């Protein structure tokens, strides 16, 4: 989401980079570009003003003007101030104290509360906690059904809300049930409401009083414009936010709302919603995000993701096999399955430094992975282990069985051959880079 902003800053600083020492007016010029970039990124103009002033104060000091690499210095200051504005460290959910722990999700209509509720449940389940989803939106038609369906998909329990119940009663009953059944975390999905709708804001205040949530999270759309400030302020004043979930981050919104909301409420951004799938939720790391804004990539998030998805035992086995040049189609299938677990290719590729921007508009056909797996599944174990036995009639059978064509099967075999060659080279060079190329460049 921040990619556009980083493009902008980069070109600004490129201009600065070309010069030796800077004069104060050069710095001003650079900062004007930064200001414009931030405004175009939907950062609230007051927040921009403060930000620029802070940067300016430091930039006009000796550390930039005297430096031999002034642009680098300026980038460093902008980077530090970005981290400072976004919050210094990642702030986790407050999961201490007696259980069940209530978490309240609030926000405008269409910001993504229901989806976020389900994603959070999945996130907590992976941490071996027992979450309990509570639909408390009785206004939007089928909102309750939506959360119940998502709960089934995630495999967590969901309170059986009836549309004629009052939200305050719903949450009270749900808390009692959670206590009785021993759930750890109660995630309450409230109706979308306008921050100036007094009646609805009173309702959410009542809900808050009834359950005393440990965390009150504002779910906000990353595409929100200048009004993000008013929205966040109103919700904060009424229900006392403890954090923010920024959604729809995978689009091309520049996400200035993140800076605005943080600046105006002081509440940390805790999570990012990065896709429609239920695993598309990331913990927000201010330092990493600041790096991403400046186009330095986000390697740490990538590694974490990979660690979560990859089976270490299998990886070790694979390593051994690679050494012996015994990489079979069986192993390829394992790899594809692990890749699928890793999440959407697009979101992964964005994390790789220097690549994210370049591949921005490239289409990634995730269905290709599904097709590949289908082809591999249609082979016999023997065929997967000894691909050499694949003759024309076997290929026809495989194509039929997987709903593809013989050409598709051939294409897969060709990529497999290329991969094997690659591994061979890799054994010679022993390069990690080659492995990365193979993993992400198929």
């Amino acid at each position: 989401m921040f990619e556009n902003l980083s493009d902008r800053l980069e070109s600004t600083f490129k201009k600065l980079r070309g010069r030796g020492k800077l004069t104060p007016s050069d710095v001003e010029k650079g900062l004007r570009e930064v200001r414009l970039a931030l405004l175009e990124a939907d950062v609230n103009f007051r927040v921009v003003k403060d930000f620029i002033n802070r940067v300016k104060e430091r930039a006009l000091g000796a550390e930039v003007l005297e430096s031999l690499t002034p642009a680098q210095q300026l980038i460093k200051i902008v980077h530090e101030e970005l981290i400072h504005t976004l919050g210094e460290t990642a702030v986790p959910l407050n999961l201490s104290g007696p259980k069940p722990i209530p978490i309240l999700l609030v926000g405008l209509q269409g910001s993504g509360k229901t989806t976020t509720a389900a994603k959070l449940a999945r996130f907590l389940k992976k941490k071996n906690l027992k979450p309990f989803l509570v639909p408390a939106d009785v206004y939007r038609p089928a909102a309750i059904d939506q959360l119940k369906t998502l709960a089934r998909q995630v495999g967590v329990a969901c309170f059986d809300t009836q549309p004629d119940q009052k939200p305050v009663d719903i949450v009270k009953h749900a808390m009692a049930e959670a206590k009785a059944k021993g759930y750890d975390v109660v995630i309450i999905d409230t109706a979308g409401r306008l921050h100036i709708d007094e009646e609805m804001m009173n309702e959410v205040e009542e809900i808050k009083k009834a359950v005393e949530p440990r965390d009150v999270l504002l779910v906000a759309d990353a595409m929100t414009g200048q009004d993000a400030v008013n929205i966040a302020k109103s919700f904060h004043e009424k229900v006392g936010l403890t954090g923010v979930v920024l959604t729809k981050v995978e689009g091309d919104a520049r996400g200035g709302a993140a800076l605005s909301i943080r600046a105006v409420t002081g509440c940390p951004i805790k999570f990012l919603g990065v896709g429609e799938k239920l695993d598309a939720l990331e913990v927000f790391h201010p330092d990493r995000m600041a790096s991403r804004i400046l186009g330095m990539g986000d390697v740490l998030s990538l590694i974490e993701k990979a660690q979560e998805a990859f089976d270490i035992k299998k990886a070790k086995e694979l390593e051994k096999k690679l050494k012996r040049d015994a990489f079979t189609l069986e192993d390829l299938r394992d790899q594809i399955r692990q890749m699928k677990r890793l999440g959407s290719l697009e979101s992964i590729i964005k994390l790789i430094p220097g690549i994210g921007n370049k591949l921005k508009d490239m289409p990634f056909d995730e269905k290709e992975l599904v097709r590949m797996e289908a082809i591999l599944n249609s082979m016999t174990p023997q065929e997967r282990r000894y691909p050499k036995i694949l003759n024309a009639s076997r290929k026809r059978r495989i194509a039929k069985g997987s709903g593809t064509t013989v050409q598709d099967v051939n294409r897969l075999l060709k990529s497999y051959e290329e991969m094997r060659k690659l591994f061979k080279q890799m054994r010679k060079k022993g390069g990690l880079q080659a492995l990365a190329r193979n993993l992400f460049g198929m």
Partner: protein
Amino acid sequence: MFKWLRKKDKKETAEVPEEKKLLGKFKERLSRTREKLKEGLGEVFVIERNVDEKFFEELEEALITADINIDTIKRLLTPLRIRVSQGELLKTSEFKEALKAEMLKILSLEPPAFPPEARPAAIFVVGVNGVGKTTSIAKLGYRLKKSGFSVLFIAADTFRAAAIEQLENWGKRMEIPVIKQKLGADPASVVFEGLKAATSRQIDVALIDTAGRLHTKYNLMEELKKMARVAGKAVEGAPHQNILVIDATTGQNAVSQVKWFKEALPIHTLIVTKMDGTAKGGIVLTLTHLFKIPISFIGLGEKLEDLEPFDPKAFVEAIIP
């Protein structure tokens, strides 16, 4: 921001014995929104003063706060700056009226006929996630039905959990039939089946609810193209109108949304939703300026009747009170 506008409309049409009393009530209801407005554009014009650089600076800032894009601000202010340099518009009150006139020039585009003439008329409603497509469809259906058209809903959002139920729910309330398949079904096939049904039942207007999709998702945009192609196979010339729904709270990303949706489908008109919030909706000016796509309706709340034809004049009066 538009709540008060609507109330004003009502005031004009209803029989009002005591104008003053109502005005008081009206003011009270609006005090909050007004305050917010004053924070933005109103404030610049509160005190009559000379038009100078400081004024321009403040005005630019106010226009930015309203989510108006920098290019549009240039387009609005450049002709006015010239006039100021020629000795015109030296007082802020004169300047204000001239600025409103410039805004009106941008906004005055004729929206396409609604509903389009074809029978059945197939209308695609598209947009990113959470902008209010399904609710807008319900409101459009309500409006059409009230003016005597027969309507059919086609539930082509087969992705979001319970999206089909949401549309069915609205359909039930208004006695509008809904054509649907299972969650996860091919949306193009739902469209085909729906339009075939609309033809055989001699329905006037078929409203097609599509899944929310971020405009940057290549596959989903391809899917949309396919749906439109398939629609054309079911009914000659379909889709007859493609409506892009934009959330008024959206910032500059709305530009990107229009750009990419336009790549996939010809976008004939926009619906701007959630105009009842405090967002000033200046993005409306930017979109009409950059893309010359007219706005048909604006959404002003959650009720079925909360959809109004877009009135450029009223909009300008609201953004600069």
